[in-house]
């Protein structure tokens, strides 16, 4: 068994399971991604409530676990145990199928997300096209959910939500095209649509696409960043699911587990579009300053970052333990938080050992399994770190900005974003032709 694993990890050139045609490893990657996304969604739920609370100068959930850390689990259990209410005149089959469509669309996208140069489930040659197309299938789930509820608030919310998503898809697509134009400016002269290929094009050209042809890359990234918020129905574009306007829009009639499927689909879609933004403009799995700080010493310092992050989290948890009031009521919470800090510290030590082993074997054999494993962890870490920054930005936007009225929203989508993205596309094409 270890032989089997090592023979796959040590194969002549590291490729994705899709390219190798190996179903077993593809399934393993799919399970890992599914588990990772579920953990990320739960963490995102917790972070959203705590961060929103702290932005509003209150504390958020503090009781369920230490500092509310077990709140997502409590929420999940509550939603699973709730009564499953289906409206009387609703279309049963369609009511049941609607959250599944959204969930399928949101999760299928993860097969092409490039966590590393060979760490994707399957690097399709049309990767970015596949991602944009499948995430446009999520709109169908929303429309069908609104119609199947057989009541006017969900229907209006669903139609508004889908109109908004469809209009911002156009601007998103054009911004993506201008990033793909930049991939064709490398030595061979042909661009690529595969996600791994796009990040490797950034690697070959030595610049993240957000800084290329300044300010064109930045404007394209800005358009995509705004369009992706509208695409996932998040604030300030969440008119369709705002509680004060439409009593929760298309998922009004859904209760319990079905509603949690919608939330899961929404968070998964947020992570998916953030990964598109990271892979296309922010250099994917590359560490910051790959060319400016090029020495092996800097490589080693940057490879310590995963361990340092977990050490930082463990330190914050220990500070939380120390600051907890010395009351007998908090004894269990202190123990829980201390155990959590210990787990984080253990993971940090593990990562430190792997990083050091990977680098100290650098002098003798650079292709040892420890070095490869350390590189793989670094790639995945930097990708996840950048996506986590985007997730925090999503929460920050929700806390800070008021929401747009629906006609203002559509006006921005069609009259502002579309012309700007067209101009950026044409300008990128002209500059690209002039440069090469």
């Amino acid at each position, binding site marked *: 068994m270890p*032989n*089997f694993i090592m*023979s*796959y990890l040590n*194969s*002549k*050139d590291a*490729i994705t399971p899709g*390219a*190798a*045609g*190996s*179903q077993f490893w593809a399934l393993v990657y799919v399970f890992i991604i599914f588990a990772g996304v579920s953990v990320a969604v739960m963490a995102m739920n917790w972070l959203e409530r705590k961060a929103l609370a702290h932005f509003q100068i209150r504390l958020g959930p503090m009781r369920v676990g230490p500092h509310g850390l077990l709140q997502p689990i409590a929420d999940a259990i509550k939603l699973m145990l709730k009564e499953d209410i289906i409206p009387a005149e609703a*279309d049963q*089959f*369609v009511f049941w*199928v609607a959250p599944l469509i959204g969930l399928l669309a949101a999760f299928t996208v993860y097969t092409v997300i490039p966590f590393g140069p060979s760490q994707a489930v399957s690097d*399709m*040659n*049309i990767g970015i*096209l*596949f991602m*944009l*197309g*499948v995430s*446009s*299938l999520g*709109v*169908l789930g929303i*429309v*069908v959910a609104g*119609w*199947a509820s057989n009541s006017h608030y969900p*229907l209006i919310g669903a*139609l508004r939500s*889908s109109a908004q998503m*469809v209009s911002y898809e156009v601007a998103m697509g054009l911004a993506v095209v201008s990033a793909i134009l930049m991939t064709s400016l490398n030595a061979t002269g*042909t661009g690529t*649509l595969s996600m791994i290929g796009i990040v490797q094009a950034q690697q070959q050209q030595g610049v993240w696409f957000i800084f290329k042809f300044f300010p064109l890359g930045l404007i394209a990234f800005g358009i995509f960043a705004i369009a992706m918020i509208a695409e996932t129905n998040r604030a300030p574009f969440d008119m369709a699911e705002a509680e004060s306007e439409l009593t929760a829009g298309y998922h009004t009639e859904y209760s319990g587990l079905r509603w949690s499927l919608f939330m899961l689909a929404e968070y998964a879609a947020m992570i998916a579009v953030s990964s598109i933004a990271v892979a296309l403009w922010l250099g994917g799995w590359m560490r910051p300053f790959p060319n400016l700080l090029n020495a092996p010493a800097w490589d080693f310092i940057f490879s310590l970052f995963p361990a340092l992050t977990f050490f930082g989290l463990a330190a914050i948890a220990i500070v939380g333990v120390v600051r907890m009031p010395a009351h007998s009521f908090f004894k269990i919470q202190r123990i829980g938080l201390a155990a959590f800090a210990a787990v984080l510290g253990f993971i940090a030590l593990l990562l430190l050992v792997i990083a050091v082993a990977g680098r100290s074997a650098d002098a003798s054999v650079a292709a040892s399994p420890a070095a490869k494993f350390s590189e793989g962890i670094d790639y995945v870490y930097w990708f996840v770190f950048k996506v986590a920054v985007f997730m925090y930005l999503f929460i920050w936007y929700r806390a800070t900005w008021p929401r747009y009225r629906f006609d203002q929203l559509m006006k921005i989508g069609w009259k502002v974003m579309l012309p700007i993205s067209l101009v950026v596309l044409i300008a990128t094409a002209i500059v690209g032709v002039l440069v090469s």
Partner: protein
Amino acid sequence: MNPALNSGLNSAVNAGMAPVATPWFFYVLAGLAVVSGLLVITRRNAVHSALALIVTLLAVTGLYLMLYAPFVAAVQIFVYAGGIMLLFLFVIMLVNIERSSKDRQFNRMWPVGLAAACALLVLFVSAFVKGKALFPDRMISLPESSNTQQIAGMLYGEAGKMGEYTFAFEIASLLLLVAILGAVIMTKKKI
């Protein structure tokens, strides 16, 4: 498993794309497409028909991927499943009247229509039975990696030359513009 895996990886990479369990995938996707097609034409509720059509389109996308046509598959998901079906769902919601779901399902001319379709089916079956020998037994394997570049070469042409379909491409974009204008004008309340 171990020695075969390494050589399998190399040969798979060299061949461009490794076919995986091909006959099983084909039968599942083809069966799904035909069953969903049957559901499209026999459901009383229009939304059920639309959902069945979406399943058919996705199954046909899978068949395109098996035929080494990834770009056509992507266009199919984008345009058909993501665009046209959304349009259909909007219109169904707009014109959905309660009376229609309690009406009869098939129109007055249904015997004639069914007879015509059966005649067509007989024609197809006879064409297939007679011409089965004309088709080759094996399928050649196309490289998948340059599919998009080659299609782009045909549509746009390489630098300096016009592609074979450039003129048709421009006409198609004009057609889309006319269709947009037509749809907008026809659905306005006052022109």
